[in-house]
């Protein structure tokens, strides 16, 4: 196996153009597992670890441009204020060692439905910045990025440069189920993001379908209910039935299966509970009656 180690982003794109079958490796937390378990078979690997641009983030115009290689540990430490949902999810990724190496770019590249970053990216309305040497930058709405289990919308000559994420305009939450209290892959996960300016609700469901999913109907329902109640600023009383309905709609949006981590039925159930709880925490809602 051949390893290419481009020193710049431009070299990386050229390497990918020259070797469209090549895999990309950054923190190694997914790719190395495949290599160690003899499940990675590309003849060429492009190591993005030297491309320093990938490990930078910047904030402007109400948006964070998060380099694909910024490790989760830095997201937890540096981005809690602008990207609270993603920061919450980042804290649940693996272990400190994994958070020191793993990155959102890796989650997107692997496109495993269980990746912890996906739900907050979906809920927060992220856009993936893909790039190729031939065609330059291509922006892909994250909801269109996931095509299937471990399949994403990248073209063979493209690499992920960054994720563009609106700075939170309201509370965000993330919650994840696993049968261990640390270092666990999601049996299912859920993120919710409230945009108090636009008065919209965003959601993301992880590990309960062939791809990460949004619960569009649930989003519309809750936004309408908040409008009706004038509850967008939070701290209001909301009837239990509204949150229950929100939970049901989130459950209904999932397309889970039975596997070693959980049953489909439990996943649906848990998503409903997480949806209700995270929405209540986010808006500091108390329930009537």
């Amino acid at each position: 196996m051949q390893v290419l180690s481009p020193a710049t982003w431009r070299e990386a794109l050229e390497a990918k153009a020259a070797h469209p079958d090549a895999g990309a490796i950054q923190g190694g937390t997914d790719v190395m597992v495949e290599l160690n378990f003899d499940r990675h078979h590309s003849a060429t690997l492009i190591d993005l670890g030297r491309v320093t641009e990938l490990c930078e983030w910047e904030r402007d115009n109400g948006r964070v441009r998060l380099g694909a290689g910024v490790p989760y540990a830095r997201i937890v430490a540096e981005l809690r204020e602008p990207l609270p949902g993603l920061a919450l999810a980042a804290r649940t990724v693996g272990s400190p060692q994994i958070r020191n190496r793993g990155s959102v770019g890796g989650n997107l590249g692997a496109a495993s439905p269980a990746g912890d970053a996906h739900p907050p990216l979906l809920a927060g309305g992220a856009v993936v910045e893909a790039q190729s040497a031939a065609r330059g930058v291509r922006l892909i709405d994250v909801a269109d990025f996931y095509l299937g289990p471990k399949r994403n919308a990248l073209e063979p000559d493209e690499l992920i440069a960054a994720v563009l994420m609106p700075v939170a305009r309201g509370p965000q939450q993330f919650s994840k189920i696993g049968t261990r209290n640390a270092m666990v892959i999601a049996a299912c996960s859920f993120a919710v993001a409230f945009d108090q300016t636009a008065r919209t609700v965003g959601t993301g469901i992880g590990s309960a379908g062939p791809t990460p999913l949004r619960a569009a109907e649930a989003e519309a329902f809750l936004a309408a209910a908040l409008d009706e109640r004038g509850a967008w600023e939070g701290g209001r009383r909301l009837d239990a039935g509204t949150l229950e309905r929100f939970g049901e709609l989130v459950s209904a949006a999932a397309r889970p299966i039975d596997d070693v981590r959980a049953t489909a039925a439990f996943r649906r159930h848990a998503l409903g509970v997480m949806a209700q709880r995270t929405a209540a925490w986010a808006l500091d809602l108390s329930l009537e009656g």
Partner: protein
Amino acid sequence: MRLTCTVNGERQEVDCAWGGESLLYVLRERFGLRGAKNACEQGECGSCSVYLDGTLVCACLVLAAQAEGAEIRTVEGLAEDDRLHPVQEAFVQAGAVQCGFCTPGLIVTTHDLLERSPHPSDAEIREALAGNLCRCTGYEKIIDAVKDAAARLG
């Protein structure tokens, strides 16, 4: 493939036979540093924890080629001459070592924690060490050791 890096302060140069070799394999089999352990090869146990350019990582998840030019510090590089590092001494004294397979990884992880947070709370210790599995001790004596190490380091 030729790899040049600094390990525990010494410049090392070696040829890797296979491009897919991990840093863990190179440390153990090519540099003869067997302190980092091979317990899961998927970053789920922390037994191969080392510093890569000052950052705590699982050596099994670093491609050897990624360590080109890097500075690596392993459990073998913590003691000074014959004197154990206070973290190591604390693990011995607290009874935190049984079979010891997880121990080198825990020592490096504890070292990293105490560099960043000299007086961690119990909850902080647990969160920082959650990536290091131990099957023998039930962790009780490990927490004792971390606290003792914090006290020793002042």
